[in-house]
């Protein structure tokens, strides 16, 4: 269904991409012209300031923004730290030999710049980390205060989720050694879930739909899988049981590629699902401006609302899928039984069913 909607949204956005060169040239003169592709991409991409709203005209009106710190490292000049609002203060948009070009920090003279700025996504990341720490400190203190008695408040809301991750995800996928991996699984589950929900908040960043973030999480899962793997895991890759010798030259490379395909699928699935959700909602809203008619808005808003509701579910579902598959990959690496064949088969099967969401 998701893929269908994604395809649908591409159908909406493709014509706008096609006409982009023409409108791009005429943009300065024709400010009324609306380019949904550009607007949507600006919304799902990272920026160096936190832009909330524009009051009035795009060029002459007031921009309600939160300036964020720029931290740049240039091999020739060293580290420079300043506020992103400095770009607006100078006439040509440059400061300290740096300028923002299509969302990227570049040097005026074209030399290499390493951008460690606290961008909108990094700010959102810090915010989400603070929220997670505050929430789970509160939950943990609930256990300390009401020692041995029934949970209350936020503790009783999140306890079933924690227990679900433990009993349905970790215990079933990893087996008796699940306890070591619980902190990681709980952290990625709540990190992804909270960031998905934060991403749905109006004006917030699209952090969990950013490929860098999903890449880092997938690499973490890959590293944990590799570092906790036992000899059975590797023997399954280099000497798969029950495979005739002449098939090994085909099977072994496939298995080796499989090690990396698994985290790549994790990375792409989360990124694509979350970004696609944002693009679809924005596309429906853009329809109003494309048709230049208020009459379209009821339909647009109804669809947008429906997709937003769906995204609330997807936010939870993607966090669950990421955690479950991570647990399964770890489970496959730590399992020391010979019935691992069955487990692996099950693993692959469930992956394809989840991918259809």
């Amino acid at each position, binding site marked *: 269904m998701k893929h269908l909607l994604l395809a649908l949204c591409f159908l909406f956005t493709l014509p706008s991409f096609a006409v982009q060169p023409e409108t791009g040239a005429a943009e300065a003169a024709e400010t009324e012209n609306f380019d949904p592709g550009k607007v949507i*991409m600006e919304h*799902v*991409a*990272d920026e160096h300031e936190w832009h909330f709203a524009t009051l009035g005209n795009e060029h002459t009106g007031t921009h309600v923004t939160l300036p964020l710190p720029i*931290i740049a490292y240039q091999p020739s000049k060293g580290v420079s730290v300043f506020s992103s609002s400095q770009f607006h203060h100078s006439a040509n948009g440059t400061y300290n030999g740096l300028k923002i070009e*299509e*969302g990227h920090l570049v040097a005026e003279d074209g030399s290499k710049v*390493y*951008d*460690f*700025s*606290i*961008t909108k*996504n*990094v700010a959102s*990341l*810090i915010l989400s*980390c603070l929220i*997670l*720490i505050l929430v*789970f*400190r509160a*939950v*943990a203190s609930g*256990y*300390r205060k009401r*020692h*041995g008695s029934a949970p209350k408040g936020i503790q009783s809301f999140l*306890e079933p989720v*924690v*227990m679900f991750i*433990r009993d349905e995800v970790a215990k079933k996928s990893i087996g008796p050694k699940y*306890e070591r991996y*619980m*902190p*990681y699984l*709980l*952290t990625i589950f709540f*990190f992804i879930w909270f960031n998905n929900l934060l991403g749905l908040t109006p004006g917030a960043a699209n952090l969990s739909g*950013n*490929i*860098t*973030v999903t*890449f*880092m*999480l997938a690499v*973490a899962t890959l590293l944990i899988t590799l570092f906790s793997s036992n000899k059975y895991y590797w023997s399954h890759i280099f000497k798969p049981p029950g495979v005739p010798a002449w098939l090994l030259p085909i099977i072994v490379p496939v298995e080796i590629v499989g090690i990396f395909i698994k985290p790549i699928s994790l990375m792409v699935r989360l*990124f694509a699902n979350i*970004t696609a959700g944002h693009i679809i909602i924005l596309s429906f809203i853009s329809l109003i401006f494309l048709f230049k008619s208020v009459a379209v808005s009821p339909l647009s808003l109804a669809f947008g609302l429906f997709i937003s509701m769906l995204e609330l579910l997807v936010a939870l579902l993607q966090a669950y899928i990421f955690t479950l598959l991570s647990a399964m990959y770890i489970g496959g690496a730590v399992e020391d039984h010979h019935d691992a064949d069955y487990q692996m088969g099950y693993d692959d099967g469930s992956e394809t069913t989840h991918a259809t969401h």
Partner: protein
Amino acid sequence: MDLITPQLGLLFWQTVLFLLLLFILTKFAWKPIMASLREREDSIESALRMADQAKIEMQQLKAGNEKLLADARQERDRMMQEATIMANQHRETEKARATEEANRIITQAREAIQQEKNAALAEVKNTAAQLSVDIAERILRRELAEPAAQTQLVDSYLKDVKLN
């Protein structure tokens, strides 16, 4: 495509902050939460086990009580039976003794009667002899004059006496 190009800065911050988050949450949230959950589950499990044990003990107690009751009932029945048997026996013995006593008394009575009778008979005989002597005396006094008549009279008296 900007959308699928990883950003160096974000990757750096994401890695640092995620590892920091993992560390802080593990230390301050996951460990205490998991420990509390396990502790509570253990306490619930032990409470359930204790309840089960108490139930089994109750059943055992009940079974013990019933056994005690059944034993008591059996004991009572046995005692009642014994008492009945003993009473019957006692009655039989008493009856036998009474019969014996009665027989003895009857025998004694018979013997006494026999003795009395014999004594009475002896007395009667003596009395008869005395009477005969008296009669003979009186007759002798009155009818000594006529000896033939005397003898005849004596004979007739004696005949009467013998008939007794």
